């Protein structure tokens, strides 16, 4: 329907009108057999009316009528394609990445601007402006709301996956709040991932992302203790993990990998599945995880993945082996600004018995001003090593 109107704002207004009409009519007339399709049909009708009134451009109207007439009886398929086209449009590479996330949350998830601002920790006018600019760009630059052709599909799908992934990670490790997990944002990301999986069932990376989100979010309840402090994976009460989500995630991860077209989301899901497989932290198959990170590096040669591999190697082969990798990474200027690297070094140094060096590494992490729960974890570790936090630190 947005394809018809070519303009997201018009499409949104017509959809709202259609829903209002539904709310008024259905109690009176009964719910139609395909309610979603009915709403789409009414919205299209109103969009067409609007176009006829507004536009003197006969060509556009002819095309619109042709498309609507060609919509056919299978309304659910049409609605599905519309949703997918909308998702692709909101994640178009011609829009800057931050705008893609905000626009998707607004237009695809239907979140009000105020909620988005709260979830992303941005001022509401900033979010509103970003959305307005993005819609304007879609309209003025002629980004048509349609499914990408076979040549573009892979790249465009990658962009959609990235937006959903960013939404999830923002919820899973929220910046600057006192909360350890932002459930609402995680759940929105999960909804998006499910919807995408339903619309694009044959793509293993799409299945992989859904699996990853299920497996990771399954651990949310155990990530914070009753005081709201961060609990590391190794220390989590695994009885608080959501077994249903884990089972579904593991099954989907297997299905995806069985297609023999591996990719980064599938590999991350496989790593999460390794953790899910272990009844206790001690029972974790770290060798397998280290091997999976090695595979992941081939797709994403980032220092963050290297650091995670180092931690897995440390668990599998001993802290000294892991430290070798981390020390190399710490020497690189980019990763030196990543608090988790120094936290990992601190943990491994402590396990090697180098307590002073461990405290120094933890202080390096603190100096980078990580989020509240992480900061509290670090000061806790420093205290456990018998040192006081640096004189200027507050806990």
């Amino acid at each position: 329907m947005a394809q018809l109107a070519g303009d997201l704002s018009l499409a949104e207004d017509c959809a709202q009108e259609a829903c209002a009409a539904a709310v008024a009519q259905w109690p009176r007339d009964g719910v139609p057999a395909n309610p979603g399709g009915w709403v789409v049909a009414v919205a299209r009708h109103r969009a067409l009316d609007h176009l006829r009134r507004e536009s003197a451009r006969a060509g556009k109207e002819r095309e619109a009528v042709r498309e609507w007439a060609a919509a056919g009886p299978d309304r659910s398929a049409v609605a599905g394609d519309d949703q997918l086209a909308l998702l692709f449009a909101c994640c178009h590479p011609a829009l800057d990445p931050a705008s893609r996330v905000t626009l998707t949350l607004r237009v695809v998830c239907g979140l009000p601007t105020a909620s988005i601002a709260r979830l992303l920790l941005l001022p509401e006018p900033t979010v509103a402006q970003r959305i307005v600019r993005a819609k304007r760009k879609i309209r003025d630059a002629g980004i048509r709301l349609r499914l990408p052709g076979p040549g573009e599909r892979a790249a465009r799908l990658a962009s959609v996956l990235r937006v959903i992934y960013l939404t999830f990670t923002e919820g899973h490790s929220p910046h600057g709040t006192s909360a350890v997990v932002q459930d609402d944002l995680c759940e929105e990301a999960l909804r998006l991932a499910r919807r995408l999986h339903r619309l694009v069932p044959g793509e293993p990376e799409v299945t992989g992302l859904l699996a990853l989100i299920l497996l990771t979010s399954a651990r949310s309840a155990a990530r914070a203790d009753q005081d709201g402090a961060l609990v590391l994976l190794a220390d989590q009460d695994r009885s608080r993990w959501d077994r249903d989500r884990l089972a579904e995630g593991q099954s989907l991860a297997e299905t995806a990998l069985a297609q023999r077209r591996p990719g980064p989301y599938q590999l991350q899901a496989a790593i999460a599945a390794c953790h899910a497989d272990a009844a206790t932290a001690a029972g974790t198959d770290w060798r397998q995880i280290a091997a999976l990170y090695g595979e992941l590096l081939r797709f994403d040669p980032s220092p963050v993945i290297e650091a995670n591999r180092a931690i897995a190697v440390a668990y599998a082969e001993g802290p000294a082996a892991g430290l070798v990798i981390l020390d190399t990474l710490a020497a690189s200027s980019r990763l030196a600004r990543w608090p988790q690297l120094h936290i990992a070094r601190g943990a491994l140094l402590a396990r090697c018995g180098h307590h002073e060096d461990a405290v120094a590494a933890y202080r390096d992490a603190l100096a980078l001003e990580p989020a509240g729960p992480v900061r509290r974890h670090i000061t806790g570790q420093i205290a456990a090593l018998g040192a006081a936090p640096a004189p200027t630190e507050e806990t």
Partner: protein
Amino acid sequence: MKYIALLYGEPDAGPAPGTPEFVEMLGEFQSATTAMADAGVLVDSGPLQPPQTATTVRVRDGQTQLSDGPFAEIKEQLGGYYILDCEDLDTALRYAAMIPSAKYGSVEVRPVMVMGPH
């Protein structure tokens, strides 16, 4: 919709004239232009003479000022343009990607404003 594709590149980027790679690049320009023409989306195109040949005109307080060279000295220089008329941005971007300047520099694709009753 009408789009202009502005071809930007650093002067030393891309193969040097006289090399076989340069001839190959000319061939790629030709293929791209032909593809656009065959698809009926090409309105106009042209390579520009180098920035040193430019003259910049400004009229301030009724006085015409001329200066030698482009309006701004920037590293990536405007080297040519294509004007396309096609159905949407994705189509324009697809053709823009065929232009060799995209490989050696950057191609900016911008819609031309539609004036008149809307």
